[in-house]
Protein backbone atom coordinates (compact mmCIF):
# COMPACT_ATOMS: atom_id res chain seq x y z
CA UNK A 1 0.00 0.00 0.00
CA UNK A 2 1.17 3.50 -0.76
CA UNK A 3 0.90 6.45 1.62
CA UNK A 4 -2.06 8.47 0.42
CA UNK A 5 -1.20 11.29 2.82
CA UNK A 6 2.40 11.38 1.60
CA UNK A 7 1.34 11.47 -2.04
CA UNK A 8 -1.14 14.24 -1.39
CA UNK A 9 1.47 16.30 0.44
CA UNK A 10 4.02 15.77 -2.36
CA UNK A 11 1.40 16.78 -4.88
CA UNK A 12 0.49 20.02 -3.08
CA UNK A 13 3.81 20.58 -1.32
CA UNK A 14 3.83 24.31 -1.99
CA UNK A 15 0.57 24.79 -0.16
CA UNK A 16 1.79 22.56 2.64
CA UNK A 17 5.12 24.26 3.10
CA UNK A 18 3.61 27.75 3.09
CA UNK A 19 0.97 26.72 5.60
CA UNK A 20 3.60 24.98 7.71
CA UNK A 21 5.71 28.14 7.58
CA UNK A 22 2.86 30.26 8.87
CA UNK A 23 2.08 27.76 11.57
CA UNK A 24 5.80 27.54 12.34
CA UNK A 25 6.09 31.26 13.01
CA UNK A 26 3.19 30.94 15.42
CA UNK A 27 4.89 27.99 17.12
CA UNK A 28 8.11 30.02 17.18
CA UNK A 29 6.30 32.78 19.07
CA UNK A 30 4.90 30.19 21.48
CA UNK A 31 8.33 28.67 22.15
CA UNK A 32 9.75 32.16 22.64
CA UNK A 33 7.06 32.99 25.18
CA UNK A 34 8.00 29.89 27.14
CA UNK A 35 11.65 30.93 26.75
CA UNK A 36 10.90 34.39 28.12
CA UNK A 37 9.35 32.84 31.22
CA UNK A 38 12.31 30.48 31.65
CA UNK A 39 14.61 33.46 31.16
CA UNK A 40 12.86 35.35 33.95
CA UNK A 41 13.20 32.42 36.33
CA UNK A 42 16.82 32.02 35.31
CA UNK A 43 17.47 35.73 35.86
CA UNK A 44 16.05 35.40 39.37
CA UNK A 45 18.26 32.38 40.07
CA UNK A 46 21.29 34.12 38.60
CA UNK A 47 20.67 37.06 40.92
CA UNK A 48 20.56 34.77 43.95
CA UNK A 49 23.57 32.71 42.84
CA UNK A 50 25.67 35.75 42.04
CA UNK A 51 24.93 37.43 45.37
CA UNK A 52 27.05 34.74 47.02
CA UNK A 53 24.74 34.66 50.03
CA UNK A 54 23.31 31.76 51.99
CA UNK A 55 20.97 33.96 54.02
CA UNK A 56 19.30 37.30 53.38
CA UNK A 57 18.67 39.38 56.48
CA UNK A 58 16.07 42.09 55.90
CA UNK A 59 13.73 44.43 57.75
CA UNK A 60 11.15 42.66 59.89
CA UNK A 61 7.84 41.87 58.15
CA UNK A 62 9.13 42.61 54.68
CA UNK A 63 9.84 40.43 51.65
CA UNK A 64 13.00 42.45 50.92
CA UNK A 65 15.33 43.31 49.49
CA UNK A 66 14.26 42.41 45.93
CA UNK A 67 10.49 42.12 46.19
CA UNK A 68 9.81 44.84 48.78
CA UNK A 69 11.69 47.83 50.19
CA UNK A 70 13.69 47.02 53.30
CA UNK A 71 15.99 49.09 55.42
CA UNK A 72 18.32 48.08 58.22
CA UNK A 73 20.86 49.99 60.27
CA UNK A 74 24.27 49.77 58.70
CA UNK A 75 25.95 48.53 61.88
CA UNK A 76 23.74 45.49 62.31
CA UNK A 77 26.08 43.32 60.28
CA UNK A 78 28.64 43.34 63.07
CA UNK A 79 26.36 41.66 65.56
CA UNK A 80 25.16 39.23 62.91
CA UNK A 81 28.73 38.31 62.10
CA UNK A 82 29.26 37.45 65.71
CA UNK A 83 26.50 34.89 65.76
CA UNK A 84 27.31 31.17 65.74
CA UNK A 85 27.54 29.63 62.30
CA UNK A 86 28.04 32.92 60.45
CA UNK A 87 31.20 33.00 58.33
CA UNK A 88 30.77 36.35 56.69
CA UNK A 89 28.17 39.09 56.73
CA UNK A 90 28.09 42.15 54.51
CA UNK A 91 25.81 45.11 53.93
CA UNK A 92 24.25 45.57 50.56
CA UNK A 93 21.95 48.07 48.88
CA UNK A 94 19.90 47.64 45.73
CA UNK A 95 18.32 50.44 43.77
CA UNK A 96 16.92 50.08 40.28
CA UNK A 97 17.23 53.36 38.43
CA UNK A 98 18.13 55.06 35.19
CA UNK A 99 21.88 55.46 34.88
CA UNK A 100 22.98 58.33 32.64
CA UNK A 101 25.90 58.39 30.28
CA UNK A 102 25.93 61.65 28.34
CA UNK A 103 22.89 61.75 26.12
CA UNK A 104 21.39 58.36 26.85
CA UNK A 105 20.52 56.39 29.91
CA UNK A 106 20.13 52.73 30.72
CA UNK A 107 17.95 51.04 33.32
CA UNK A 108 20.13 49.18 35.78
CA UNK A 109 20.09 47.75 39.28
CA UNK A 110 22.71 49.72 41.16
CA UNK A 111 24.18 47.53 43.88
CA UNK A 112 26.15 48.94 46.74
CA UNK A 113 28.85 46.55 48.00
CA UNK A 114 31.01 46.86 51.08
CA UNK A 115 34.73 47.27 50.90
CA UNK A 116 36.50 43.96 51.15
CA UNK A 117 38.03 41.29 48.98
CA UNK A 118 36.50 39.20 46.18
CA UNK A 119 34.16 36.60 47.63
CA UNK A 120 32.59 39.09 50.02
CA UNK A 121 28.83 38.57 49.86
CA UNK A 122 27.32 40.87 47.25
CA UNK A 123 30.48 41.14 45.19
CA UNK A 124 30.37 39.98 41.58
CA UNK A 125 31.86 36.45 41.67
CA UNK A 126 33.81 36.81 38.42
CA UNK A 127 34.65 39.46 35.89
CA UNK A 128 34.97 39.14 32.13
CA UNK A 129 37.25 42.17 31.93
CA UNK A 130 38.99 44.71 34.15
CA UNK A 131 39.25 44.50 37.92
CA UNK A 132 37.12 44.70 41.04
CA UNK A 133 36.47 47.98 42.86
CA UNK A 134 39.49 48.95 44.94
CA UNK A 135 38.85 52.57 45.84
CA UNK A 136 36.17 53.60 48.28
CA UNK A 137 34.46 55.98 45.87
CA UNK A 138 33.37 56.54 42.29
CA UNK A 139 34.47 53.25 40.80
CA UNK A 140 32.03 50.82 39.25
CA UNK A 141 31.83 47.30 37.88
CA UNK A 142 29.09 47.09 35.27
CA UNK A 143 27.42 44.23 33.46
CA UNK A 144 28.19 44.28 29.73
CA UNK A 145 24.44 44.34 29.07
CA UNK A 146 24.49 47.98 30.18
CA UNK A 147 26.51 48.74 27.06
CA UNK A 148 29.30 50.29 29.11
CA UNK A 149 32.94 49.52 28.33
CA UNK A 150 36.02 49.72 30.50
CA UNK A 151 36.94 53.31 31.21
CA UNK A 152 33.47 54.67 30.46
CA UNK A 153 32.16 57.37 32.72
CA UNK A 154 28.54 57.55 33.82
CA UNK A 155 26.43 59.49 36.26
CA UNK A 156 24.28 58.40 39.19
CA UNK A 157 22.54 61.34 40.81
CA UNK A 158 25.21 63.98 41.20
CA UNK A 159 28.25 61.70 41.11
CA UNK A 160 30.33 60.41 38.22
CA UNK A 161 31.72 56.89 38.16
CA UNK A 162 34.36 55.15 36.09
CA UNK A 163 33.84 51.59 34.87
CA UNK A 164 36.80 49.50 36.04
CA UNK A 165 35.40 45.99 35.52
CA UNK A 166 32.79 44.15 33.48
CA UNK A 167 30.55 41.19 34.31
CA UNK A 168 28.30 38.96 32.24
CA UNK A 169 24.73 37.82 33.09
CA UNK A 170 24.64 39.73 36.33
CA UNK A 171 21.03 40.85 36.21
CA UNK A 172 18.18 41.74 38.52
CA UNK A 173 15.10 39.57 38.68
CA UNK A 174 13.63 42.02 36.17
CA UNK A 175 16.45 41.28 33.77
CA UNK A 176 18.00 44.72 34.28
CA UNK A 177 21.82 44.63 34.21
CA UNK A 178 23.61 45.28 37.51
CA UNK A 179 26.11 48.01 38.29
CA UNK A 180 28.24 47.58 41.39
CA UNK A 181 29.46 50.65 43.22
CA UNK A 182 30.86 51.19 46.73
CA UNK A 183 28.25 50.94 49.46
CA UNK A 184 28.72 54.49 50.73
CA UNK A 185 28.10 55.94 47.29
CA UNK A 186 25.12 53.69 46.79
CA UNK A 187 23.36 54.49 50.02
CA UNK A 188 23.97 58.16 49.35
CA UNK A 189 22.34 57.74 45.98
CA UNK A 190 19.43 56.00 47.63
CA UNK A 191 18.89 57.98 50.80
CA UNK A 192 20.63 61.32 50.40
CA UNK A 193 18.46 64.36 49.84
CA UNK A 194 19.37 67.03 47.31
CA UNK A 195 20.95 70.35 48.35
CA UNK A 196 17.68 72.28 48.51
CA UNK A 197 16.12 69.66 50.73
CA UNK A 198 19.18 69.69 53.02
CA UNK A 199 18.99 73.48 53.26
CA UNK A 200 15.30 73.39 54.02
CA UNK A 201 15.73 70.76 56.65
CA UNK A 202 18.59 72.66 58.28
CA UNK A 203 16.52 75.82 58.35
CA UNK A 204 13.63 74.00 59.95
CA UNK A 205 15.92 72.40 62.52
CA UNK A 206 17.45 75.78 63.36
CA UNK A 207 13.97 77.22 63.79
CA UNK A 208 12.90 74.42 66.10
CA UNK A 209 13.37 75.83 69.64
CA UNK A 210 13.83 72.39 71.16
CA UNK A 211 17.02 71.81 69.12
CA UNK A 212 18.36 75.36 69.09
CA UNK A 213 19.07 75.91 72.79
CA UNK A 214 21.41 78.68 73.75
CA UNK A 215 22.32 76.76 76.92
CA UNK A 216 23.53 73.70 75.03
CA UNK A 217 25.52 75.10 72.10
CA UNK A 218 26.63 71.72 70.65
CA UNK A 219 23.14 70.27 70.40
CA UNK A 220 22.16 71.95 67.12
CA UNK A 221 25.36 70.85 65.40
CA UNK A 222 24.87 67.26 66.59
CA UNK A 223 21.28 67.17 65.41
CA UNK A 224 22.19 68.53 61.98
CA UNK A 225 25.07 66.09 61.69
CA UNK A 226 22.82 63.15 62.53
CA UNK A 227 20.30 64.26 59.95
CA UNK A 228 22.81 64.25 57.14
CA UNK A 229 24.24 60.82 57.79
CA UNK A 230 22.25 57.94 56.50
CA UNK A 231 22.87 54.83 58.48
CA UNK A 232 20.72 52.54 56.34
CA UNK A 233 21.26 49.58 54.02
CA UNK A 234 18.69 47.30 52.36
CA UNK A 235 19.92 43.95 53.55
CA UNK A 236 22.73 42.03 55.14
CA UNK A 237 24.00 39.11 53.08
CA UNK A 238 25.24 36.20 55.18
CA UNK A 239 27.51 33.29 54.33
CA UNK A 240 27.40 30.46 56.83
CA UNK A 241 30.24 28.31 58.04
CA UNK A 242 30.43 24.82 56.68
CA UNK A 243 28.96 22.31 59.08
CA UNK A 244 26.08 24.61 60.00
CA UNK A 245 22.55 24.27 58.70
CA UNK A 246 21.23 27.42 57.05
CA UNK A 247 17.81 27.20 58.66
CA UNK A 248 19.30 26.88 62.18
CA UNK A 249 21.48 29.93 61.70
CA UNK A 250 18.50 31.78 60.26
CA UNK A 251 16.43 30.83 63.29
CA UNK A 252 18.92 32.20 65.77
CA UNK A 253 19.32 35.49 63.85
CA UNK A 254 15.57 35.80 63.75
CA UNK A 255 15.27 35.13 67.46
CA UNK A 256 18.10 37.32 68.72
CA UNK A 257 18.01 40.21 66.33
CA UNK A 258 14.27 40.38 65.66
CA UNK A 259 14.85 40.48 61.92
CA UNK A 260 13.44 38.71 58.92
CA UNK A 261 15.81 36.09 57.53
CA UNK A 262 15.37 34.15 54.30
CA UNK A 263 17.38 31.21 53.08
CA UNK A 264 18.07 30.41 49.47
CA UNK A 265 14.94 28.31 48.93
CA UNK A 266 12.66 30.90 50.54
CA UNK A 267 14.28 33.67 48.53
CA UNK A 268 13.71 31.76 45.32
CA UNK A 269 10.07 31.24 46.30
CA UNK A 270 9.70 34.98 46.85
CA UNK A 271 11.30 35.86 43.51
CA UNK A 272 9.68 33.18 41.37
CA UNK A 273 6.44 32.74 43.31
CA UNK A 274 5.69 36.38 44.04
CA UNK A 275 7.83 38.82 42.12
CA UNK A 276 7.42 37.27 38.68
CA UNK A 277 4.20 35.37 39.37
CA UNK A 278 1.96 37.86 37.58
CA UNK A 279 4.25 37.95 34.57
CA UNK A 280 4.26 34.17 34.58
CA UNK A 281 0.46 34.07 34.56
CA UNK A 282 0.43 36.66 31.81
CA UNK A 283 2.74 34.47 29.74
CA UNK A 284 0.72 31.37 30.61
CA UNK A 285 -2.42 33.07 29.32
CA UNK A 286 -0.57 33.98 26.16
CA UNK A 287 0.55 30.37 25.71
CA UNK A 288 -3.05 29.18 26.06
CA UNK A 289 -4.27 31.68 23.46
CA UNK A 290 -1.44 30.81 21.07
CA UNK A 291 -2.23 27.10 21.43
CA UNK A 292 -5.90 27.72 20.72
CA UNK A 293 -5.05 29.88 17.71
CA UNK A 294 -2.62 27.26 16.39
CA UNK A 295 -5.24 24.56 16.88
CA UNK A 296 -7.83 26.66 15.08
CA UNK A 297 -5.46 27.25 12.17
CA UNK A 298 -4.53 23.57 11.84
CA UNK A 299 -8.19 22.56 12.13
CA UNK A 300 -9.26 25.13 9.57
CA UNK A 301 -6.54 24.23 7.07
CA UNK A 302 -6.99 20.49 7.36
CA UNK A 303 -10.74 20.92 7.13
CA UNK A 304 -10.42 23.06 4.01
CA UNK A 305 -7.96 20.62 2.41
CA UNK A 306 -10.38 17.79 3.16
CA UNK A 307 -13.43 19.61 1.80
CA UNK A 308 -11.49 20.12 -1.41
CA UNK A 309 -11.18 16.35 -1.71
CA UNK A 310 -14.76 15.30 -0.98
CA UNK A 311 -15.26 13.88 -4.45
CA UNK A 312 -12.01 11.92 -4.29
CA UNK A 313 -12.95 10.64 -0.86
CA UNK A 314 -16.34 9.50 -2.17
CA UNK A 315 -14.56 7.67 -5.00
CA UNK A 316 -12.05 6.14 -2.58
CA UNK A 317 -14.91 4.91 -0.41
CA UNK A 318 -16.85 3.59 -3.37
CA UNK A 319 -13.92 1.55 -4.61
CA UNK A 320 -13.58 0.03 -1.16
CA UNK A 321 -11.13 2.15 0.83
CA UNK A 322 -11.58 1.58 4.56
CA UNK A 323 -12.68 4.48 6.76
CA UNK A 324 -9.57 3.83 8.79
CA UNK A 325 -7.38 4.45 5.74
CA UNK A 326 -9.13 7.73 4.96
CA UNK A 327 -9.00 8.92 8.58
CA UNK A 328 -5.34 7.94 8.67
CA UNK A 329 -4.66 9.98 5.55
CA UNK A 330 -6.12 13.13 7.12
CA UNK A 331 -4.47 12.50 10.46
CA UNK A 332 -1.07 12.01 8.86
CA UNK A 333 -1.46 15.25 6.95
CA UNK A 334 -2.31 17.13 10.12
CA UNK A 335 0.69 15.65 11.88
CA UNK A 336 2.93 16.42 8.91
CA UNK A 337 1.75 20.01 9.01
CA UNK A 338 2.52 20.10 12.72
CA UNK A 339 6.01 18.67 12.12
CA UNK A 340 6.83 21.28 9.48
CA UNK A 341 5.45 23.92 11.82
CA UNK A 342 7.46 22.67 14.76
CA UNK A 343 10.74 22.55 12.83
CA UNK A 344 10.17 26.06 11.47
CA UNK A 345 9.11 27.27 14.91
CA UNK A 346 12.12 25.77 16.65
CA UNK A 347 14.49 27.30 14.12
CA UNK A 348 12.91 30.76 14.21
CA UNK A 349 12.72 30.78 18.01
CA UNK A 350 16.42 29.85 18.19
CA UNK A 351 17.34 32.48 15.61
CA UNK A 352 15.50 35.37 17.18
CA UNK A 353 16.11 34.53 20.85
CA UNK A 354 19.40 36.52 21.05
CA UNK A 355 17.70 39.62 19.63
CA UNK A 356 15.32 39.89 22.60
CA UNK A 357 16.31 42.61 25.07
CA UNK A 358 15.79 40.23 28.00
CA UNK A 359 17.21 36.76 28.41
CA UNK A 360 15.26 34.09 26.49
CA UNK A 361 16.09 30.60 27.72
CA UNK A 362 14.98 27.87 25.30
CA UNK A 363 15.04 24.73 27.39
CA UNK A 364 15.26 21.43 25.48
CA UNK A 365 12.56 20.02 27.74
CA UNK A 366 10.23 22.86 26.74
CA UNK A 367 10.87 21.98 23.10
CA UNK A 368 9.92 18.38 23.82
CA UNK A 369 6.77 19.55 25.61
CA UNK A 370 6.02 21.91 22.73
CA UNK A 371 6.48 19.09 20.26
CA UNK A 372 4.09 16.84 22.15
CA UNK A 373 1.59 19.69 22.41
CA UNK A 374 1.84 20.38 18.66
CA UNK A 375 1.22 16.74 17.82
CA UNK A 376 -1.73 16.53 20.23
CA UNK A 377 -3.20 19.77 18.89
CA UNK A 378 -2.82 18.55 15.30
CA UNK A 379 -4.45 15.22 16.11
CA UNK A 380 -7.35 16.88 17.91
CA UNK A 381 -7.90 19.50 15.24
CA UNK A 382 -7.94 16.90 12.47
CA UNK A 383 -11.00 15.30 14.09
CA UNK A 384 -13.40 17.82 12.53
CA UNK A 385 -12.00 17.07 9.08
CA UNK A 386 -12.05 13.33 9.72
CA UNK A 387 -15.67 13.53 10.81
CA UNK A 388 -16.55 15.38 7.61
CA UNK A 389 -14.68 12.81 5.54
CA UNK A 390 -16.33 9.85 7.24
CA UNK A 391 -19.75 11.38 6.61
CA UNK A 392 -19.12 11.45 2.88
CA UNK A 393 -21.53 9.07 1.17
CA UNK A 394 -19.85 6.79 -1.37
CA UNK A 395 -23.11 7.07 -3.37
CA UNK A 396 -22.07 10.67 -4.12
CA UNK A 397 -19.51 9.32 -6.55
CA UNK A 398 -22.34 7.99 -8.67
CA UNK A 399 -24.11 10.96 -10.24
CA UNK A 400 -27.68 11.92 -9.30
Amino acid at each position, binding site marked *: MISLAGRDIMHAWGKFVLTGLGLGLLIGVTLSMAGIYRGMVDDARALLDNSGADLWVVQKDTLGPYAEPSSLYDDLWRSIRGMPGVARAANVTYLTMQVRQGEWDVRAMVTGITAGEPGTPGWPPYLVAGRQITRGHYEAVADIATGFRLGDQFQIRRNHYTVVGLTRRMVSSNGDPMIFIPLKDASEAQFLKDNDAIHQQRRRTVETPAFNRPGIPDLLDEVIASQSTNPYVNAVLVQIKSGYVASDVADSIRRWQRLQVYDRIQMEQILVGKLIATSAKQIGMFLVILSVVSAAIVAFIIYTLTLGKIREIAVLKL*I*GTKNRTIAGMILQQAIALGLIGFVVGKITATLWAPIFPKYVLLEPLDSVRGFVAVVIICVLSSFIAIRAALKVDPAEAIGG
Partner: protein
Amino acid sequence: MIGKGIVIEGLKKRYGSGETAVDALKEVNMQVAPGEVVGLIGPSGSGKSTLLKCLGAVIEPTAGRMKLGDEIIYDNGWKVKDLRALRRDRIGFIFQAPYLIPFLDVTDNVALLPMLAGKPNAESRKQAVELFKALDVEHRAKAMPSQLSGGEQQRVAIARGLVNRPPVILADEPTAPLDSERALAVIRILNDMAHRFETAIIVVTHDEKIIPTFKRIYHIRDGVTQEESGEGKDFQ
Protein backbone atom coordinates in the same frame (compact mmCIF):
# COMPACT_ATOMS: atom_id res chain seq x y z
CA MET B 1 -30.64 -18.71 -17.57
CA ILE B 2 -27.03 -18.18 -16.49
CA GLY B 3 -25.10 -18.95 -13.33
CA LYS B 4 -22.75 -15.97 -13.53
CA GLY B 5 -23.18 -12.36 -14.55
CA ILE B 6 -25.90 -10.24 -13.03
CA VAL B 7 -29.42 -11.30 -12.11
CA ILE B 8 -31.91 -8.82 -10.68
CA GLU B 9 -35.42 -9.92 -9.77
CA GLY B 10 -38.31 -7.80 -8.53
CA LEU B 11 -36.02 -5.08 -7.18
CA LYS B 12 -37.74 -2.19 -5.41
CA LYS B 13 -36.40 0.97 -3.85
CA ARG B 14 -38.41 3.51 -1.91
CA TYR B 15 -36.78 6.75 -0.69
CA GLY B 16 -38.20 8.16 2.52
CA SER B 17 -41.48 7.10 4.06
CA GLY B 18 -45.06 8.22 4.60
CA GLU B 19 -46.47 11.04 2.47
CA THR B 20 -43.13 12.09 0.99
CA ALA B 21 -42.00 8.60 0.00
CA VAL B 22 -40.67 8.22 -3.55
CA ASP B 23 -40.79 4.86 -5.26
CA ALA B 24 -37.68 5.23 -7.41
CA LEU B 25 -37.60 1.53 -8.39
CA LYS B 26 -40.90 -0.29 -8.62
CA GLU B 27 -40.15 -3.45 -10.54
CA VAL B 28 -36.68 -4.05 -11.91
CA ASN B 29 -35.79 -7.32 -13.61
CA MET B 30 -32.50 -7.67 -15.45
CA GLN B 31 -30.10 -10.37 -16.53
CA VAL B 32 -26.64 -9.76 -17.90
CA ALA B 33 -24.49 -12.68 -18.97
CA PRO B 34 -20.73 -12.77 -18.47
CA GLY B 35 -19.08 -11.20 -21.49
CA GLU B 36 -22.17 -9.19 -22.31
CA VAL B 37 -22.55 -5.40 -22.47
CA VAL B 38 -26.13 -4.18 -22.07
CA GLY B 39 -27.48 -0.66 -22.21
CA LEU B 40 -29.75 0.84 -19.57
CA ILE B 41 -31.71 3.71 -21.02
CA GLY B 42 -34.35 5.94 -19.55
CA PRO B 43 -35.39 9.54 -19.14
CA SER B 44 -34.09 11.66 -16.34
CA GLY B 45 -35.60 10.70 -12.98
CA SER B 46 -36.56 7.23 -14.14
CA GLY B 47 -34.35 5.50 -11.58
CA LYS B 48 -31.11 4.67 -13.45
CA SER B 49 -28.76 6.04 -10.83
CA THR B 50 -30.79 4.48 -8.06
CA LEU B 51 -30.46 1.11 -9.74
CA LEU B 52 -26.68 1.50 -10.10
CA LYS B 53 -26.38 2.51 -6.45
CA CYS B 54 -28.36 -0.55 -5.34
CA LEU B 55 -26.35 -2.85 -7.53
CA GLY B 56 -23.16 -1.09 -6.47
CA ALA B 57 -24.04 -1.78 -2.82
CA VAL B 58 -23.93 1.84 -1.72
CA ILE B 59 -27.63 2.11 -0.95
CA GLU B 60 -29.93 -0.61 0.27
CA PRO B 61 -32.91 -1.67 -1.84
CA THR B 62 -36.32 -2.03 -0.23
CA ALA B 63 -37.13 -5.46 -1.61
CA GLY B 64 -36.18 -7.98 -4.31
CA ARG B 65 -33.16 -10.10 -5.16
CA MET B 66 -29.74 -9.39 -6.66
CA LYS B 67 -27.16 -11.92 -7.72
CA LEU B 68 -23.57 -11.10 -8.69
CA GLY B 69 -21.52 -13.90 -10.19
CA ASP B 70 -22.79 -16.99 -8.46
CA GLU B 71 -23.57 -15.32 -5.13
CA ILE B 72 -26.87 -13.87 -4.01
CA ILE B 73 -25.89 -10.53 -2.51
CA TYR B 74 -29.37 -9.27 -1.74
CA ASP B 75 -32.55 -11.14 -0.95
CA ASN B 76 -34.91 -8.78 0.87
CA GLY B 77 -31.83 -7.80 2.86
CA TRP B 78 -28.05 -7.89 2.34
CA LYS B 79 -26.61 -11.39 2.19
CA VAL B 80 -23.03 -10.12 2.22
CA LYS B 81 -21.45 -8.80 5.41
CA ASP B 82 -18.64 -6.65 4.06
CA LEU B 83 -20.17 -4.44 1.35
CA ARG B 84 -16.94 -2.46 1.15
CA ALA B 85 -14.97 -5.57 0.21
CA LEU B 86 -17.75 -6.56 -2.17
CA ARG B 87 -17.40 -3.25 -3.99
CA ARG B 88 -13.63 -3.49 -3.98
CA ASP B 89 -13.32 -7.06 -5.23
CA ARG B 90 -16.39 -7.77 -7.32
CA ILE B 91 -17.63 -4.54 -8.87
CA GLY B 92 -15.87 -2.16 -11.21
CA PHE B 93 -17.18 1.40 -11.34
CA ILE B 94 -16.85 3.77 -14.25
CA PHE B 95 -18.33 7.21 -13.73
CA GLN B 96 -19.59 9.97 -15.96
CA ALA B 97 -16.41 11.92 -15.20
CA PRO B 98 -13.12 10.09 -14.67
CA TYR B 99 -12.78 11.15 -10.99
CA LEU B 100 -9.15 10.14 -10.86
CA ILE B 101 -7.28 10.83 -7.63
CA PRO B 102 -5.33 13.99 -8.53
CA PHE B 103 -2.36 13.30 -6.26
CA LEU B 104 -1.62 9.82 -7.61
CA ASP B 105 0.00 9.21 -10.97
CA VAL B 106 -1.82 7.24 -13.64
CA THR B 107 -0.32 3.90 -12.64
CA ASP B 108 -1.08 4.29 -8.95
CA ASN B 109 -4.60 5.54 -9.65
CA VAL B 110 -5.27 2.13 -11.12
CA ALA B 111 -2.90 0.09 -8.95
CA LEU B 112 -4.57 1.51 -5.83
CA LEU B 113 -7.40 -0.99 -6.15
CA PRO B 114 -5.35 -4.17 -5.98
CA MET B 115 -3.28 -2.47 -3.26
CA LEU B 116 -6.44 -1.82 -1.25
CA ALA B 117 -7.23 -5.51 -1.64
CA GLY B 118 -3.89 -6.25 -0.02
CA LYS B 119 -1.70 -7.03 -3.02
CA PRO B 120 1.95 -5.94 -2.96
CA ASN B 121 2.70 -2.62 -4.68
CA ALA B 122 4.88 -4.05 -7.43
CA GLU B 123 2.36 -6.69 -8.38
CA SER B 124 -0.47 -4.16 -8.30
CA ARG B 125 1.41 -1.81 -10.61
CA LYS B 126 2.24 -4.61 -12.99
CA GLN B 127 -1.44 -5.47 -13.16
CA ALA B 128 -2.26 -1.84 -13.94
CA VAL B 129 0.36 -1.43 -16.62
CA GLU B 130 -0.83 -4.57 -18.39
CA LEU B 131 -4.23 -2.97 -18.82
CA PHE B 132 -2.74 0.24 -20.14
CA LYS B 133 -1.51 -1.60 -23.21
CA ALA B 134 -5.01 -2.70 -24.08
CA LEU B 135 -6.38 0.80 -23.39
CA ASP B 136 -3.64 2.59 -25.28
CA VAL B 137 -2.47 4.75 -22.38
CA GLU B 138 0.79 2.88 -21.83
CA HIS B 139 2.82 5.95 -22.71
CA ARG B 140 1.08 8.00 -19.99
CA ALA B 141 1.68 5.55 -17.16
CA LYS B 142 3.90 7.97 -15.18
CA ALA B 143 1.86 11.10 -15.88
CA MET B 144 -0.37 12.85 -13.36
CA PRO B 145 -4.10 12.88 -14.15
CA SER B 146 -4.09 16.63 -14.75
CA GLN B 147 -1.63 16.13 -17.63
CA LEU B 148 -3.98 13.82 -19.55
CA SER B 149 -6.61 14.67 -22.12
CA GLY B 150 -10.25 13.96 -21.26
CA GLY B 151 -10.25 10.82 -23.38
CA GLU B 152 -7.06 9.53 -21.79
CA GLN B 153 -8.44 10.20 -18.32
CA GLN B 154 -11.57 8.27 -19.13
CA ARG B 155 -9.53 5.35 -20.41
CA VAL B 156 -7.50 5.35 -17.19
CA ALA B 157 -10.79 5.39 -15.27
CA ILE B 158 -11.90 2.37 -17.27
CA ALA B 159 -8.63 0.64 -16.43
CA ARG B 160 -9.37 1.32 -12.77
CA GLY B 161 -12.81 -0.25 -13.17
CA LEU B 162 -11.25 -3.35 -14.73
CA VAL B 163 -8.06 -3.84 -12.80
CA ASN B 164 -9.39 -6.14 -10.09
CA ARG B 165 -11.01 -8.28 -12.81
CA PRO B 166 -14.46 -7.83 -11.27
CA PRO B 167 -17.22 -10.08 -12.60
CA VAL B 168 -19.40 -6.97 -12.90
CA ILE B 169 -18.81 -3.47 -14.22
CA LEU B 170 -21.25 -0.62 -13.70
CA ALA B 171 -20.73 2.34 -16.00
CA ASP B 172 -22.69 5.53 -15.40
CA GLU B 173 -22.84 7.57 -18.61
CA PRO B 174 -19.20 6.76 -19.40
CA THR B 175 -19.26 8.48 -22.77
CA ALA B 176 -21.09 11.68 -21.85
CA PRO B 177 -18.04 13.96 -22.01
CA LEU B 178 -16.59 12.38 -25.16
CA ASP B 179 -17.00 13.08 -28.86
CA SER B 180 -18.56 10.42 -30.98
CA GLU B 181 -15.34 8.82 -32.12
CA ARG B 182 -13.98 8.53 -28.59
CA ALA B 183 -17.36 7.45 -27.26
CA LEU B 184 -17.41 4.57 -29.70
CA ALA B 185 -13.83 3.74 -28.79
CA VAL B 186 -14.82 3.44 -25.14
CA ILE B 187 -17.70 1.11 -26.02
CA ARG B 188 -15.34 -0.94 -28.12
CA ILE B 189 -12.97 -1.26 -25.21
CA LEU B 190 -15.79 -2.27 -22.88
CA ASN B 191 -16.97 -4.93 -25.32
CA ASP B 192 -13.44 -6.12 -25.72
CA MET B 193 -12.90 -6.34 -21.96
CA ALA B 194 -16.26 -8.02 -21.39
CA HIS B 195 -15.30 -10.61 -23.91
CA ARG B 196 -11.78 -11.10 -22.64
CA PHE B 197 -12.45 -11.23 -18.92
CA GLU B 198 -15.99 -12.69 -18.94
CA THR B 199 -17.29 -9.52 -17.37
CA ALA B 200 -20.95 -8.54 -17.20
CA ILE B 201 -21.25 -4.84 -17.98
CA ILE B 202 -24.19 -2.46 -17.55
CA VAL B 203 -23.83 0.88 -19.31
CA VAL B 204 -26.27 3.60 -18.23
CA THR B 205 -26.61 6.09 -21.03
CA HIS B 206 -28.79 8.31 -23.08
CA ASP B 207 -26.03 8.95 -25.55
CA GLU B 208 -27.60 8.57 -29.00
CA LYS B 209 -24.22 7.81 -30.51
CA ILE B 210 -23.73 4.58 -28.65
CA ILE B 211 -27.27 3.27 -28.23
CA PRO B 212 -27.18 1.45 -31.55
CA THR B 213 -24.15 -0.56 -30.43
CA PHE B 214 -25.97 -2.60 -27.80
CA LYS B 215 -27.32 -6.02 -28.67
CA ARG B 216 -29.65 -5.86 -25.71
CA ILE B 217 -31.13 -2.82 -24.04
CA TYR B 218 -33.17 -2.31 -20.88
CA HIS B 219 -35.53 0.61 -20.86
CA ILE B 220 -36.50 2.00 -17.51
CA ARG B 221 -39.50 4.27 -17.00
CA ASP B 222 -40.84 5.33 -13.59
CA GLY B 223 -38.84 2.63 -11.91
CA VAL B 224 -39.98 -0.23 -14.14
CA THR B 225 -37.61 -2.01 -16.53
CA GLN B 226 -38.47 -3.45 -19.88
CA GLU B 227 -36.16 -5.53 -22.04
CA GLU B 228 -35.65 -4.85 -25.73
CA SER B 229 -33.31 -6.22 -28.29
CA GLY B 230 -31.02 -3.56 -29.70
CA GLU B 231 -29.45 -3.10 -33.08
CA GLY B 232 -26.11 -4.49 -32.02
CA LYS B 233 -24.48 -2.52 -34.78
CA ASP B 234 -20.98 -3.40 -35.72
CA PHE B 235 -19.16 -0.20 -34.91
CA GLN B 236 -15.68 -1.34 -35.66
